[in-house]
């Protein structure tokens, strides 16, 4: 492995915010992050700073590592190397400001809980350990359900909701956390038109309120309409910045069509060799 492909030996004792290329205003700073599954690299050497108070789309083809990027940033997937900070601090210290919306398919919707129960989970950190969810917290959860238009269905079991309604329940749960950064994994996947409109309205509300949303998105056509910033990803960062700057034919070609086979071939070779990825 040559150093031009995989960074090795990053000595980074200090906060990323002190490096000239990163800033502590950024809700999410990723520095030289490489991620591998079963030793097969899926993200190479990602550097990225999310702008504050913006709606950011993470786009790229299937297998580009979009979900992996946010999962690795949040610590759900181990990082082979690299540093991640939120507002210049390690994740552990700012958990309460980050709300995560996982993919809808990642849970079992026959689970015996109501929509309101799920939204209440967004309050669990505030409720604290071993204590039941109090009336005040339930009230906040209901308000969040109302914001996504589901107040009437609060007591319905979650399997009796449509796919779009289930997605909105997840969004309401994130709202209930009252965070500053919303990290969403494919919230628009397979939802009906009403839900899509509701999510877009919600994203705009969040921006009005000074928050940031980083959204894995699969529909290129709607990116300019829904988002301010874009991160084009295909195993590495192809381009990142304001949508009107980075959403060029050339960048999209690089992301989706271009000659990127060398990267995946190298990844296969690394996986076969059994070497540890750093």
């Amino acid at each position, binding site marked *: 492995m040559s150093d031009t492909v995989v960074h090795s030996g990053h000595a980074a004792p200090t906060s990323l915010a002190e490096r000239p290329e990163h800033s502590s205003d950024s809700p999410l700073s990723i520095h030289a992050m490489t991620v591998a599954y079963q030793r097969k690299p899926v993200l190479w050497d990602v550097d990225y700073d999310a702008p504050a108070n913006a709606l950011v789309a993470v786009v790229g083809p299937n297998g580009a590592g979009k979900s992996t990027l946010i999962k690795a940033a949040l610590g*759900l997937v181990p990082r082979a190397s690299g540093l991640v900070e939120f507002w210049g601090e390690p994740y552990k210290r700012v958990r309460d400001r980050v709300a995560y919306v996982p993919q809808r398919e990642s849970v079992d919707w026959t689970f*015996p809980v109501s929509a309101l129960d799920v939204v209440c989970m967004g309050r*669990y950190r505030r409720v604290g350990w071993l204590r039941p969810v109090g009336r005040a917290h339930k009230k906040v959860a209901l308000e969040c359900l109302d914001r996504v238009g589901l107040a009437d269905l609060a007591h319905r079991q979650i399997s009796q909701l449509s796919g779009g309604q289930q997605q909105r329940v997840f969004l309401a749960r994130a709202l209930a956390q009252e965070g500053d950064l919303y990290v969403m994994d494919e919230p628009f996947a397979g939802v009906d038109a009403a839900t899509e409109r509701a999510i877009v309205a919600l994203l705009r509300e969040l921006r009005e309120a000074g928050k940031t949303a980083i959204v894995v998105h699969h529909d290129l056509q709607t990116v300019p309409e829904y988002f301010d910033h874009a991160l084009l990803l295909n195993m590495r960062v192809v381009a990142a910045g304001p949508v009107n700057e980075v959403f060029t034919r050339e960048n999209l070609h690089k992301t989706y069509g271009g000659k990127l086979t060398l990267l995946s071939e190298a990844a296969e070779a690394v996986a076969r060799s059994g070497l540890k990825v750093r």
Partner: protein
Amino acid sequence: MALARPEALLIGDVLEVLTFQGGYNTNAVLVGSAMLGLAAGVVGVFALLRKRSLVADAIGHATLPGIVIAFLIAVMLGASGRSLPVLLLGAAVSAAMAVLGIFGILKYTRLREDAAIGIVLGVFFGVGVVLLSYVQRPENVTASPAGLHHFIYGQTAAMRAGDAMLMAGIALSAVVVTAVMFKELALASFNDDYARVAGFPVSLLDGLMLGLVVLVTVAGLQAVGLILVIALLIIPPVAARLWTDRLLPLMLISGGLGALSGYIGAATSALLPRAPAGSVIVLCGGGVFVLSLLIAPKHGVVAMAGRRAVQRLRIAGEHLLEAAYEHDVSRKGDTTIPARTIRAMERLWGWPIWLGPMVIAGLRRRGHLQRTSDGYELTTTGAARGARIARNHQLWEQYLQTYADVAPGHVDWSADTVEHVLSPELVAELEAALKAKGALP
């Protein structure tokens, strides 16, 4: 427990045991078994929801080597080797090692969970059986290992009040921990990634949940035995799931059903001392499950069949109103339906002989139809309902042809179904969509 007699059981005996008149020892075993069932029902809910029920099976089987090794160590140290707490401690230790073994295999190999469970279950149980046959040969061990094999199938007949209280104590501690950690266990079971991001220690909670399973298993070793304790962890939650869609009621019902199975099962086996108690208790659980499957109001078979029958009757009635409307009301303004017309429709639709009278009775009850001298007559509401269904049919056919490019000959069948389920909102949407294309019929 010396209640059993060679002659047939008498109702009086059953009542005597069930009403706690079977003596101190019997009562203690009854209460202990009920507590065990309660704990298994409550803990089993989370094992099931976290999809870890089969890990519980491995835990059960993996207690055997621990029991035998604890016995051997106790004998070597000069103790009797029959001390229940020592044996149960051994069981818990080897069960915990089995859990670590399963997760070790998952972490360091590419085997899937089912394979890892199978390997650990088989190896631990195999070692246990080999060790058991070793200690059972008198030339190997001087102390008598009599009774160790009862841990395999369970045996309440030999239980003393103290044993039963130990069982109840361990079981109740598992219930208390589950109740206290309810919220956190629920979160980790429903959405582990989300729980991790929110800062909840999911691995620790998983470990705790499996620790509770180990506790229940160890508590149940004497009464139910290590092979069948898994059934006590699975059956009550699955049966309870048929009764409710909410987590807290699920836990309460599951615990209740488990306690009931334990109580009735232990009472029955007090009267049938030769049948292994574990199997009797588990069979009681099985009975509770079958009963739930039949009569549970939410997801029970009877309730579902009933709902389907009501639905079928409603649809058949709506077809009749629709046909009557289309043929006579809309064309001739004639709202009467002669009995022979109804017979003709029944033949056309291939209705079984009993359906027609039931459909008509239903329509009359709802005021859609009233009797006349030579047949029936549509009421105003009946005619309106028929018109609505006919309109729905037409809208859906037109929609399929306009938007889905379905050939006109192929739209009738789906319209026959869809016409009955369109809500006013959907009808409005359909009309708007068709109007936009200028195709509103």
